[in-house]
């Protein structure tokens, strides 16, 4: 899920490098350049939980994005880091995938004192990888981004997650090396 904003050729280059590296290792890749898609924003109506369970009422690419996420083994969130978080383009798609979880509450990290989240809807979910792009190193934004990926992984029931930050002074192809290293750095998500 490529959340590049209009005219961001660097993030496009990272997306291209990632796809090449994954395909070279035998992965089948479903790339989403989100800004090119007809994708409405989430209305917060919760009909995907209580009226058409598991399905957003809006019939556009949002449904296809949700389907491809749940059918994947790995979901990659690629984004220019915006105030430590996701770009608006990526956020629009992420808001549309809450149909993949259940409205009902559960505790994660302990039946009594665990934190409250929503139940899983499906039996299995993809692992999650966040790749953020910054102009230059920025400790505060990088920490927020790392935390956000970890929090999303809990809420979206990703069995494992990892994140990395690329700087615009680097070559986009650095994504290949990051992908290789992340395999050893992935964290098991609390369940």
């Amino acid at each position, binding site marked *: 899920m490529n959340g590049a904003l209009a005219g961001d050729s660097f993030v496009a280059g990272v997306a291209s490098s990632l796809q090449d590296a994954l395909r070279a290792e035998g992965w089948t890749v479903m790339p989403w350049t989100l800004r090119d898609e007809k994708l409405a924003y989430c209305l917060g109506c919760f009909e995907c939980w*209580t009226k058409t*369970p598991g399905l957003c009422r809006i019939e556009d690419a949002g449904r296809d994005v949700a389907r491809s996420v749940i059918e994947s083994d790995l979901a990659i969130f690629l984004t220019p880091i*915006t105030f430590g978080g996701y770009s608006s383009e990526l956020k629009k798609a992420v808001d549309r995938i809450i149909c993949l979880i259940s*409205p009902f*509450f559960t505790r994660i990290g302990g039946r009594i004192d665990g934190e409250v989240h929503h139940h899983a809807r499906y039996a299995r979910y993809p692992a999650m990888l966040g790749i953020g792009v910054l102009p230059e190193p920025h400790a505060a934004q990088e920490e927020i981004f790392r*935390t*956000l990926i970890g929090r999303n992984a809990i809420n979206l029931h990703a069995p494992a997650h990892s994140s990395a930050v690329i700087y615009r002074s680097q070559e986009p192809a650095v994504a290949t090396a990051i992908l290789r290293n992340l395999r050893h750095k992935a964290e098991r998500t609390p369940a």
Partner: protein
Amino acid sequence: MTTPQNALLLIGSAKPAGQSTSEALGTYLAQRLQARGVTTTTMHVARAMRTEARTAELLDAVDHSDLVILAFPLYVDSLPYLVTEALERIAAHRQAQPSSAPASFLAIANCGFPEAAHNATVLAICRQFADEAGFAWAGGLALGEGGAVSGRPLAQAGGMVRNVVAALDLAAAALAEGKPAPQEAVALLAQPFIPARAYMLMGDLGWLMQARHNRALTRLAARPFGHG
């Protein structure tokens, strides 16, 4: 921070006007600021981002405010899409005008989970936005169990919201004097209305009732993408 004369309240919920917890919280705070002599203007982000002309009105309103208050719901651990886009536009606008007047930024987040702590990441994002857009940080307030307010004006929500009212009263007093929201207000707002177990039960019952109303009760666990 400077003592505010004009405050702008941005409602970040996409729900219709008058129906969101974000609006209930923000409107109460705006009323308390008005009582202290601060002029307030309210704009709904969803409406403001609908056309370029309306977005220009939003940016103009930001330019003419010395306190901007953003009240919003938590969406998947961060800001809703429309609010993210609005903040991108505001930051770019202010960065293009280095001589932007000094102004402060306060964030009020609410979520449907019992723990207000779910809002910590999004408030960090808001603080980072304030820094990049040249606002003084006036604080981040977080509410859990937002479903218990359910969009009702605080005056109609009864004694259950007494801590919310007290927190926003404290915040208004500080903000009107040009100070950030005090830690006491942050702590009061974060206190749960009811025990988490009771809230979870009520929340789950609420989903069941909505599904029953929508004739979807037997399909609640549907897996339309056929996986798992």
